[in-house]
């Protein structure tokens, strides 16, 4: 069996929702004699699973089931209340495409900016600029400020950088479905290449086709717990059943 690269062990995360929101010192000061009530919101409840080397694991679940919180805990953006996440190798989280763009800068400077935020060294970014621009089909617009890009052009650039910055584990949150059919096919081809090269991928998506096509296994999160784990096609079927129950 392939080695485990990410191990999520009984991770729990909750938030306390105050009855009255106080965001300023003034509000806290004036409200000192009016204690607030807090409602505990258990977003993740002892979630456990493993991701093995070279494997693509899909995570499905309805809106608000805790998927994004799980990814943020896994990537170290949130801290867990209890449990532990053990990551044995380099991890590239892509929770949103193009996060951190500066519209006042051109494509090359933005490649440096996003690339270094994603943990690439300056040398690695420098070496991959031509490849990124070629993949995004934006060589002619390399020195154009991003504020003059169309949303499609900006998305293509974001994809191209995301695919360049991949470490052994790639965490993707709902980032499929951008660009025209040609570009989409190119992304899927690149994605297959990454799998063949042995990258492990954690893929969060509502898109049943993406999960059944690309994932070896999948888990279904419901009300902060792992409701189902197994073959991707089985989990997709269970997800559709849960969603249709909700509609009824």
């Amino acid at each position, binding site marked *: 069996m392939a080695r485990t690269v990410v191990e999520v062990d009984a991770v729990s995360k909750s938030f*306390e929702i105050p009855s009255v929101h106080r965001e*300023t010192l003034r509000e806290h000061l004036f409200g000192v004699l009016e204690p607030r009530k807090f409602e505990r919101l258990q977003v993740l409840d002892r979630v456990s699973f493993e991701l093995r080397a070279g494997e693509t694991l899909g995570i499905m679940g309805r809106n608000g089931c805790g998927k994004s919180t799980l990814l943020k805990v896994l990537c170290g953006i949130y801290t867990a209340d209890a449990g532990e996440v053990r990551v044995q190798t380099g991890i590239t989280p892509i929770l949103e495409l193009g996060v951190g763009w500066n519209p006042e800068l051109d494509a090359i400077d933005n490649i440096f900016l996003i690339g270094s935020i994603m943990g690439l060294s300056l040398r690695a970014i420098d070496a991959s600029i031509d490849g990124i621009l070629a993949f995004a089909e934006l060589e002619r617009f390399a020195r154009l400020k991003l504020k003059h890009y169309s949303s499609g052009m900006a998305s293509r650039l974001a994809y191209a950088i995301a695919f360049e910055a991949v470490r052994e584990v790639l965490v993707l949150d709902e980032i499929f479905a951008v660009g025209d059919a040609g570009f989409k096919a190119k992304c899927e081809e690149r994605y297959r290449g990454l799998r063949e090269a042995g990258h492990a991928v954690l893929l969060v998506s509502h898109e049943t086709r993406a999960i059944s096509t690309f994932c070896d296994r999948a888990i279904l999160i419901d009300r902060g717990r792992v409701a189902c784990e197994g073959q991707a096609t089985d989990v997709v079927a269970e997800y559709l059943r849960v969603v249709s129950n909700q509609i009824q």
Partner: protein
Amino acid sequence: MTASAETAPPSREPARPADGPAPRPVTRASDGASVWGLVWTLVRTDFKARYHGTPVGFLWALLKPAAMFLVLVGVFSLIFHDEPNYKLKLIIGLFLWNFFSEATTSGMGSLAAKGFLVSKARFPRWILVVTSIANALITLLVFAGVVTAYLLVSGRGPGVAALGAFLFYILCLATITIGLSLGTSVLFLRFRDLNQIWDMTTQAGFFLAPIVYPLGVIPERYHVYLYLWPPTPAIEFSRLAMVEGVLPSPTAHICLGLMAAGILAVGAVLFQRYGPRAAEYV
């Protein structure tokens, strides 16, 4: 009471940590992230975006302190006309103050302003705070170069010791600024009116520090209180070294160094305490 996740109301505040065991850090293998590459890129791109990548754009940034200098010199030269080198002392004080004021303001708002990065990307958060003061520091260093060149040309060039001391004071002021920024950046996420309070503090602090007036006009027994306001020693010592060629005592240097280290330590502790949950508050 346990609520279903579906009922989560959209809010910036609800991330108050729930009771329970202390959060454990995510353990991970080194991923070779280039921290210094990120620091350099953030500073370079921020500078480029702010000043449109041109020297003229940078000169534009000097207009504010220069205009302030002209106004203050017009008013206070009349009052302190007996004070030797008043204009030179005023401009040194003004640029050091301008750095402190601008850097602490942008440092406080650094995490909130880059909230999209804090909540979506994974990298050491302190980098955002430290790089946010870079522009103000570059402006100050350029000014330090210009004032040194002016003194050299006018035949009053500071000695090596005075110049070294001046750089030490700038380093101390930058350390103080980073310490304040680290602490206030995480507190600002919880208390969104902290910037207004800091704004009032710096307005009062401008007159608490001996910028427009010579320290000598204040009775000596009050000096110790003025020196507790962090910019005061950095400004006063810089003037002594650069304009009068006098170095303060070793004890004074040690006190300034300790003040800088102490403020940095307090800021770092606050950042360490509240930083890990910053993403829940942006």
